């Protein structure tokens, strides 16, 4: 391990929440690497544990089990002090730019907040210069420096969120559905901004979303989650061309195609998500899977590398081979 290729290595990460009804398996046995300078897209429906995964990776929530290794350092049980230092390297962009910005702070104060917290600059002028630079970087006009968030549209607000995340020069950013609260046209602006920043600053992203077309646009690898478990992990193009897991197939068939001539068989998933509290043994997706067998209901499938780089956790896919 002389050379660190991976920005982040996550091994068998688990996060259970205690509820009166039993343990809620929010994240269950998730393993992945993110190479430096690349993007991992994390896809899944609401409540599948994507955001929890992001929070655990950043250390905002304690992991129940497993490990998170950031740039060769195991940070799973880092001390409080180390956690705070790590915040300068690992940042988070929030989903909702309307509620994630303090309504009583103006744009420049919001962007300067992380710089204040870490006391990066001693002089006010340096601080203001840095804020001005950041505003340029994310494409916010300087005349907005003293505007308040409620005076700005969603795209500009999210640019503030990006600037706040960038303020401390992090290496790794968890983007927690950064565009799902925005209009489609503004989504594209923010995605392109994130891509440009990645290229210019060498950032590594973990991009959490439920929108497959967004994830295709930005990710190198994609991780599909269902009820806290990994269903499939593969390079982005490969996943879109050869989806293996029935759940992934179902998700892909739901992406709208802007053409009336293309006829396509939609795979409809029946039923609803079962409860993640004390889940039954067996594949989490089995109750809704059209191909489920007795084995699926009894035995939890393990993640297998079916073709190079393409992992999936499904008994049936193994059976096909």
């Amino acid at each position, binding site marked *: 391990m002389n050379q660190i290729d991976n920005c982040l290595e996550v091994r068998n990460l688990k996060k259970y929440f205690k509820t009166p009804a039993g343990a809620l398996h929010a994240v269950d046995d998730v393993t992945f690497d993110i190479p430096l300078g690349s993007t991992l897209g994390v896809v899944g429906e609401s409540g599948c544990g994507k955001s929890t995964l992001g929070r655990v990776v*950043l250390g*905002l929530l304690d992991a129940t089990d497993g490990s998170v290794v950031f740039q060769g350092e195991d940070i799973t049980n880092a001390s409080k002090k180390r956690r705070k230092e790590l915040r300068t390297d690992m940042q988070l962009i929030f989903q909702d730019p309307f*509620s994630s910005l*303090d309504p009583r702070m*103006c744009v420049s104060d919001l962007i300067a907040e*992380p710089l204040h917290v870490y006391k990066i600059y001693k002089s*006010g002028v340096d601080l203001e210069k840095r804020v001005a630079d950041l505003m340029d970087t994310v494409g916010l006009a300087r005349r907005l*420096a*003293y505007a308040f968030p409620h005076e700005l549209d969603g795209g500009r607000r999210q640019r503030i969120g990006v600037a*706040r995340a960038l303020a401390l020069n992090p290496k790794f950013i968890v983007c927690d559905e950064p565009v799902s609260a925005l209009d489609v046209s503004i989504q594209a602006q923010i995605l392109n901004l994130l891509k440009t920043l990645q290229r210019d600053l060498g950032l590594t992203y973990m991009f959490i979303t439920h929108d497959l077309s967004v994830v295709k646009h930005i990710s190198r690898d994609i991780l599909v989650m269902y009820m806290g478990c990994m269903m499939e992990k593969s390079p982005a193009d490969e996943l879109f061309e050869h989806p293996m897991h029935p759940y992934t197939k179902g998700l892909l068939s739901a992406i709208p195609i802007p053409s009336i001539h293309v006829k396509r068989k939609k795979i409809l998933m029946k039923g609803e998500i079962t409860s993640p509290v004390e889940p039954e043994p067996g594949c989490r997706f089995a109750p809704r899977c059209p191909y489920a067998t007795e084995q699926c209901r009894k035995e939890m499938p393990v993640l297998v590398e079916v073709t190079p780089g393409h992992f999936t956790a499904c008994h049936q896919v193994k059976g096909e081979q």
Partner: protein
Amino acid sequence: MKNKKADFLLGDGTKKHSQWLDVWSRLRKNPLAMICLIIVILLILVAIFAPLISPYPYAKQNPGEKMLYPSWQHLLGTDNYGRDLLSRILYGGRISLLVSVMAVVISLIVGGLIGATAGYYGGGYDTTIMRIMDILMGIPSFLFAVCISAALGTGVVNTAVAIAITGVPSYARLVRASVLSIKGNEFIEAATALGNTNMRIILKHVIPNVLSPLIVQSTLNIGAFIMAISGLSFVGLGVQPPTPEWGSIMSSGRQYIRDFYPIVTFPGVAIVITLFAFNILGDGLRDAMDPKLKK
């Protein structure tokens, strides 16, 4: 002003951007609030300089000049002992303002701390504290104040404490509710993610966002507390004669209300002016502190 600040961000000035300056500049645009601010300042000045501006000593009785109507000798007339009403009202403002402001500050701090910790930490602590507050709220506040006042004894500080304790539960509830609603916001989590300490989050994010209901509540309370002090004085607790106090002056003139109006009317007018000034100033402050209302 806005342009000047923007220039600074471009790196040429040294002007410090201050939140309170913004509040002040917004408050200045509200003429009604400014008038009330001036009245409040005048009231405070009058209370401080009462010995210098009163034409007569407040306790000097003059049986020969009982119950005189306003004249050039006695601008607001005299009371049933022949004491100059203007002097008594000027001195009375001292007690009324001092005690009510003291009571508001005490109940704001105590209630605010109780409510903020209950809201922030939650759980069993929250439940226990808030049920105690509910019990306190269940006791009629005047009765409660009378009991505490009787237990503590009379005097300015004791009266303030007695009144303040009756105000604590409502502050605790208000602050707890505000903290709960703020705590659920994503920007608090965002602040944690940026590495803020709990203390910094409370100071920089929670308090500024709960301040406006507190300001309104406090200015309303100043009025309510002036009335409560008068009530206590009226039943013989609170401030003792001959120390003048607006409520006690009014209650002493109560029996003459049909035949001789000044004793009841003028202190009443003083109370009304004070209440209006504080309430409207409070409203103005709340608006000025809300950046969303900026024009």
